[in-house]
């Protein structure tokens, strides 16, 4: 077996059969995964280090909300994700190391672990003034910027995942007048990446995309680099208030019953599965709480969806193709 190739034992370890020094409570469902899946998975995992695949998380111009959303993961529980599924080598909000030690982890990944880690970026990349609106760490050559780290880590990563609308499309930091020249990760790297947008993204979208990448290879993506699995259909098409829309029962004031399109709901164009998946362990979601969808998963968010509480143009609300007839691209089914 070639060096770096995973063994069955490694694979099982990755799925959490290693007992941790302290009890974390609960088992990992994946422990019971059939062994025959190993062969299928091997080509994907090869080269991602021994045991748990290395993940480097880097925060740019953002609010940490995506990371906090990830902490809300239910199945698998976030403790298991952190300690048994992935090897989260670096994450600014969670890592113990500060200062030069923290910088060294990022630098080592960049210099010595090319092709051996998955890079997750949260937040947009400030590019104006050579990136000086977002600084991070320094070495003997001086101060470094978010632009520097995303460019360099992105170049050597095995795969790049942009988590959240800021990293995926620029998001709120890139809103007019965009004083810091905020750009998406894909725009900075000049190569396609996997986008998991949302402000923030649902934890299932983040973990589901990683799982797809690790177990079954890159997921099928739409034109915006989003996995079909989660972003395949509009909110409108699956909305419990769709019947109200058809019957032209519209809410006129916030808090009313009825379809929210005239209060600014972006459900007709926003592509995500919130209507079925619901948020925070399934307890609620935006339209469920009588508030309009903001379209936060869209590349148009926020500027081209503003004012947020104003109705979309008529042709967006009633497109030529009926929402329920919209066909998914083949590979997305």
């Amino acid at each position: 077996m070639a060096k770096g190739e995973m063994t069955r034992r490694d694979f099982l370890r990755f799925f959490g059969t290693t007992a941790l020094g302290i009890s974390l409570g609960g088992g990992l469902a994946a422990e019971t995964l059939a062994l025959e899946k190993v062969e299928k998975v091997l080509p994907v995992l090869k080269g991602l280090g021994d045991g748990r695949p290395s993940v480097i998380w880097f925060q740019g111009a953002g609010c940490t909300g995506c990371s906090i959303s990830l902490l809300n993961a239910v199945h698998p529980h976030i403790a298991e994700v952190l300690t048994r599924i992935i090897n989260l080598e670096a994450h600014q909000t969670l890592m113990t190391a500060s200062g030069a030690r923290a910088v060294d982890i990022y630098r080592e990944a960049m210099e010595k672990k090319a092709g051996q880690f998955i890079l997750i970026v949260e937040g947009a990349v400030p590019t104006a003034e050579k990136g000086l609106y977002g600084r991070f760490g320094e070495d003997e050559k001086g101060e470094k910027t978010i632009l520097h780290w995303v460019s360099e880590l992105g170049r050597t990563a095995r795969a790049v995942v942009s988590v959240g609308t800021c990293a995926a499309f620029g998001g709120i930091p890139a809103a007019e007048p965009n004083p810091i020249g905020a750009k998406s990760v894909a725009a900075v790297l000049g190569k396609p990446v996997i986008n998991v947008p949302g402000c923030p993204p649902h934890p299932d979208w983040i973990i589901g995309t990683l799982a797809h990448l690790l177990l079954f290879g890159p997921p099928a993506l739409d034109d915006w680099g989003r996995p079909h699995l989660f972003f395949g259909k509009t909110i409108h098409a699956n909305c419990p208030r769709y019947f109200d829309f058809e019957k032209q029962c519209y809410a006129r004031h916030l808090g009313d019953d009825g379809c929210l399109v005239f209060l600014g709901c972006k459900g007709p164009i926003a592509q995500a599965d919130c209507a079925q998946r619901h948020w925070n362990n399934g307890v609620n979601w935006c339209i469920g709480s009588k508030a309009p969808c903001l379209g936060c998963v869209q590349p148009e968010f926020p500027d081209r969806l503003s004012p947020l509480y104003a109705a979309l143009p008529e042709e967006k609300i009633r497109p030529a193709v009926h929402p329920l007839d919209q066909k998914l691209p083949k590979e997305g089914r």
Partner: protein
Amino acid sequence: MAATIIIDPVTRVEGHLKVEIEVDQGKVVEAKCTGSLFRGFELIMRGREPKDAQQLTQRICGICPQSHGLAASLALEEVFGVEPPENARIMRNLMQGINYVMSHLLHFYHLTALDYVKGPDMAPFIPAYQGDYRLSKEDNEAVAHHYFQALDIRKKCHEMLALFGGKMPHSVTSVPGGVTERPTPDKIVSWVWRLKEVKQFVDGVYVPDVLLLGKAYADYFRIGAGCLNLLSFGVFPLEKTHQQKFFKRGTSLKGREGEMEVARISEEVTYSWYQDETSPKNPKEGATSPQLHKEKAYSFVKAPRYAGLPCEVGPLARMWINGDYRRGISVMDRITARALECQKVVQALEDWILQLKPNEKTCNRVNPVRQGEGAGLTEAPRGAVGHWIRLREGKTENYQIVPPTNWNCSPRDDGQVRGPMEEALIGTPIEDRKNPIEAARVIHSFDP
């Protein structure tokens, strides 16, 4: 000989922070705190539909979006002259309160504890600074175990918030005029039962762990005092005029208690990357004009001052001004006051949840106006937060935000006086320059 230590980045904070300290004869003699990211929310808000503020500004902070959204809602309600119904006042208190609990647990276990307790022997818990980890093996293991339990409890807090807020982070229901969601009995019950679990953890695990830490690190009751000025905007209105609050509004300046008058707040930028002409200004008239290449400047954080003085904000300031905690001002006092505040808030939530009236309304209608101004002052878990808005021809003409981190992590002001965290670092003993763990403890105690 003095040596400079640069901690860049300071991890386990929300945002991007760098701290530079000078150490002489084993003690910190100089300190500079740098907020190293600028996004320009104030500039982005200009020219927009005012109502969008409560959604957009939540994205300032993914840990305390609720407080920014609330500050924006309050500012807009002042502009529009609308008062939310009782149900909305209570629901907002519930959402804000449970996010305090979420944030305080996250802060203690996930952002701070690793300065005192060794985590599992794996990334991202290693590498760590070497230092005086003083807990016994058993105690250390117990707290490390609680790190993981606390992940679960803080997640439950977000579930509770989402029951009334739609989703978290970045909830959607608090709008000018009230709250869109209704307090149905099933939601109330679901809340109460989750709260029982949260309370058990706070009373039985969090507070005892903090007290345990306080015993083992008793010297930290004498480290990191800072500027000794405290400020609170007050939070959790107990009746609809907002006159009476669960945590009262006020100041304590070098031990002298007083009122908190908004007109006495100024933001100064001599040492920040903004144009000097904009300093000092009351946030109502404030400006945000970035200027990168500026001598002396070292931070994107402005320097807010009250009556010309730097002020510490946060749980210790709130508890002190409210008369709930008066032991002292230090690293361990901040951590202790935060835990005791958490306990006090949980107790209040038990009462507030039962004050909701399922059949009464939650949202009043808003008649938008084209001109006007408003201020929204509240308290995020980590301290005072204020939003100031001015409308012209129906659009946002000026928007100013003073978040808690501006108060605590501010650079020097126009009079060269250090910010609270900088001042708190002065005098901190540093055992080993390569492992400035003592400085990290001072920094994290502010929940920057």
